[in-house]
């Protein structure tokens, strides 16, 4: 057990990040369980603690008498300096043991910019960074989360990846590892990895050899042993009503990013926005039953004591029984001072009416995401909203007393022209004017928030050549010059980090050496602008002889084999290609839950069906 010197804790910011003891944390004696798992998120405590997936796994693993799940996050730079200075290894928050003594360390990979932190955490743990260098005594290093759908850039650092939803497969991994350990680690690490490769949804990168074509594209990931499957399909929970949910999450002392109850209504989204990776990889839609949600909500209120509950799903407003559910939640918990919030709003007046119901007095800002400035471009990305929808919704919000509105857009989308950029400004002004029409006076505040589009694997835009940082900056400047009103504020993202994100999103195995080199030269916390070191990354590409443009900026050929081709979320590549063509033609595609099945392949391929509770209840 590691005890931290008070002198260290008094020198670092927010020492509560490292001291544990939070309500609902489960401290088991590691010597009394067969397998210990460190659940890691390669970012700071406040970000790591907000991840719903890890909360679920924490509960599922700790329910097992033979296993212990503990938490570990990236120490902030001040703490890292102290740890390196005093030779304190990375430790878990529960038993305060070195992570190196755990049997498994599982990293949740939520965004590409956290890759350097994975290396930093392994290094702080004293675990060899390259999977190939790890002897039997070291923990099994597992990756999961959305980035695992193209794990190739970090393939060298992980023993295996969980593709898709982890509730069931994590238990299988634990059982396999426990048996192997009980059998005296027979056959060594290789034997364990081959057994794991036999589980559905587990990808062991070392069992595949990647060859490249003359033009540098990935030609093939070939299996090099019989245990490995040619294609790894994602794991998916058929019925969410049947699996455990995080009803007893650890309640932090510090104010974390999502410091509230997270109630997951459903998984998946069938709206089909063409830029959205989550919308593809979490298909199909599977709803929880309203009565189960009410029960989960009650357990969560009782076990956490939180005074706020957020209905989290990809597009919570799409839940089929939302209205009844929200009313029931408000009714049941108002005595206990618990408020309900909807993080993502659909652009329609129904949503505004709901927002009004849940936020009865407070009129803090409402957020809408038109994503693009013109109807033409919104059709390209299949964002099924019109300017009229937006104006009606915002008008309803103004009428209901809101005066601050935040509008989310992306720039750098396929087929985008300067007219589309100017359309963003025009929309912002129209919203300002609308306030005057509705209220008879000025006084609205509009925030225009613009992120840079990064094409993601498994989406219809996976072929698209990402805009260069220079082009994105030009577009930002253009927009800035059009937004000259003190009632409009403008936020934008660093274009250089978007490039890096784009490279790793669609990169291949050769990038592992770039990540390694960048980390060796000080890259970490790349998602935090104050720590992002663009020159270090560019130098790492240069020394590896690799061109970031090749991965991010190149329009890919229709028949190109992608580095992630051997990993499938169940959605057919032909469907995605068709969607890309429809995008370029500006043709909309409807919601497959409410309209016709679009034949994406998920439901028949994975044997899972769209589960829409409202529809079932009605017929």
């Amino acid at each position, binding site marked *: 057990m590691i005890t931290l010197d008070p002198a260290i804790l008094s020198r670092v910011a927010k020492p509560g990040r490292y001291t544990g003891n939070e309500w609902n944390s489960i401290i088991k004696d590691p010597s009394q369980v067969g397998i210990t798992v460190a659940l890691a998120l390669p970012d700071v405590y406040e970000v790591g603690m907000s991840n719903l997936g890890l909360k679920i796994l924490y509960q599922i693993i700790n329910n097992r008498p033979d296993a212990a799940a503990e938490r570990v996050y990236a120490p902030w730079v001040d703490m890292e300096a102290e740890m390196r200075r005093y030779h304190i290894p990375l430790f878990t928050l529960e038993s305060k043991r070195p992570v190196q003594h755990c049997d498994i360390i599982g990293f949740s990979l939520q965004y590409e910019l956290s890759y350097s932190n994975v290396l930093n955490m392994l290094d702080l743990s004293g675990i060899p960074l390259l999977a190939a260098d790890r002897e039997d005594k070291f923990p099994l290093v597992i990756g999961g989360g959305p980035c695992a759908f193209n794990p190739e850039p970090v393939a060298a650092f992980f023993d295996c990846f969980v593709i898709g939803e982890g509730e069931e497969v994590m238990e299988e991994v634990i059982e396999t590892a426990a048996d192997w350990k009980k059998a005296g680690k027979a056959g060594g690490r290789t034997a364990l990895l081959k057994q794991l490769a036999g589980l559905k949804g587990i990808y062991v990168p070392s069992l595949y050899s990647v060859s490249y074509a003359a033009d540098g594209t990935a030609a093939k990931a070939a299996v090099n042993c019989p245990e490995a499957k040619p294609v790894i399909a994602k794991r998916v929970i058929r019925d969410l009503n049947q699996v455990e949910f995080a009803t007893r999450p650890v*309640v932090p002392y510090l104010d974390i990013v999502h410091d509230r109850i997270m109630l997951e209504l459903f998984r998946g989204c069938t709206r089909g926005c063409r830029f959205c990776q989550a919308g593809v990889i979490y298909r199909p839609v599977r709803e929880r039953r309203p009565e189960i949600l009410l029960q989960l909500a009650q357990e969560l209120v009782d076990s956490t004591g939180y005074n706020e509950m957020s209905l989290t799903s990809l597009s919570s407003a799409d839940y089929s029984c939302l209205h009844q559910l929200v009313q029931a939640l408000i009714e049941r918990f108002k005595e206990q001072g618990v408020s309900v919030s909807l993080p993502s709003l659909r652009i329609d007046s129904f949503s505004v009416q709901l927002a009004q119901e849940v936020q009865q007095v407070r009129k803090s800002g409402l957020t809408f995401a038109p994503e693009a400035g013109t109807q033409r471009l919104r059709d390209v990305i299949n964002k099924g909203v019109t300017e009229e929808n937006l104006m009606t919704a915002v008008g309803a919000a103004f009428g209901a007393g809101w005066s601050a509105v935040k509008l989310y857009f992306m720039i750098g989308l396929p087929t985008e022209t300067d007219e589309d950029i100017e359309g963003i400004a025009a929309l912002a002004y129209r919203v300002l004017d609308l306030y005057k029409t509705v209220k008879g006076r000025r006084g609205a505040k509009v925030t225009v928030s613009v992120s840079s589009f990064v094409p993601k694997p498994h989406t219809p835009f996976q072929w698209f050549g990402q805009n260069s940082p220079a082009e994105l900056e030009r577009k930002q400047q253009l927009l800035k010059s059009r937004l000259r009103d003190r009632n409009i504020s403008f936020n934008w993202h660093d274009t250089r980090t978007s490039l890096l994100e784009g490279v790793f999103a669609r990169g291949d195995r050769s990038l592992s050496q770039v990540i390694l080199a960048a980390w060796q030269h000080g890259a970490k916390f790349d998602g935090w602008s104050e720590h992002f070191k663009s020159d270090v990354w560019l130098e790492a590409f240069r020394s590896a002889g690799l061109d970031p443009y090749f991965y991010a900026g190149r329009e890919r050929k229709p028949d190109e084999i992608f580095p992630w081709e051997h990993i499938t979320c169940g959605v057919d590549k032909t469907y995605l290609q068709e969607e890309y063509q429809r995008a370029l033609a500006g043709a909309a595609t409807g919601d497959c839950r409410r309209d016709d099945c679009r034949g994406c392949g998920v439901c028949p391929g994975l044997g899972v069906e769209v589960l829409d509770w409202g529809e079932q209840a009605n017929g």
Partner: protein
Amino acid sequence: MAKLRVKITKGEEVRYISHLDYAGAIERAIRRANLPAAYSAGFNPHMKLSFASALGLGVTSEGEYMDVEFTAAVDPVMARNKLNDSLPPGIFVKQSGYVDDRSPALMAVVNLAEYRILAPLAAGTEFCDVQASLRRFHSADEVNYIRESPKKKREIDLKQFLVQDIAAAAAGEAVRLSMAIKITPTGSVKAGEVLAALVAQFDLPVVQDSALIHRVGLYIANETVRSLPLP
């Protein structure tokens, strides 16, 4: 309405949380305990909690006081037990009792805080060096300490807040200091600030970073007696 006053600890397990986070942890425990807490009106209703005095990050205590308003007077012992079942490790209700609804706020009556500091002796020094340092401190007419916040600097005379001489005792390789600090309507000072001044201005030979500060208690004091703010 009923106002329950509790004496509550902040232990080693929660030493490194701020006052705001400490209050938040207690508020959530009250909700978990399902006690009939009263809420402020309006949106974002807040539980009606009030503390005697804020306790800083890094400081533990065995005698904090808090008032919580209930919509109905439940048995105070039952309330205490339920609360203790719901509180995280290190936070514990030692005593509880109702005070009059209209009784003055804790903040208005508590005027004295007693602290104990355990600090390792600096290398190559002895207890007599500590005593010498304290002697110089006690004979000074005033000790000015500059409190810096991100916005401004303020000079405070520490001595006007100390009600008696600081006592020191040797504790192995460490030294134990005891002090009592006045809490006035216009403000107070922290034990850590007194320690910092002792080290910086009077060469107190201790490892300041490693000092463990503990609040022994909070009191209502006058010239002659100290009493506890409990019914």
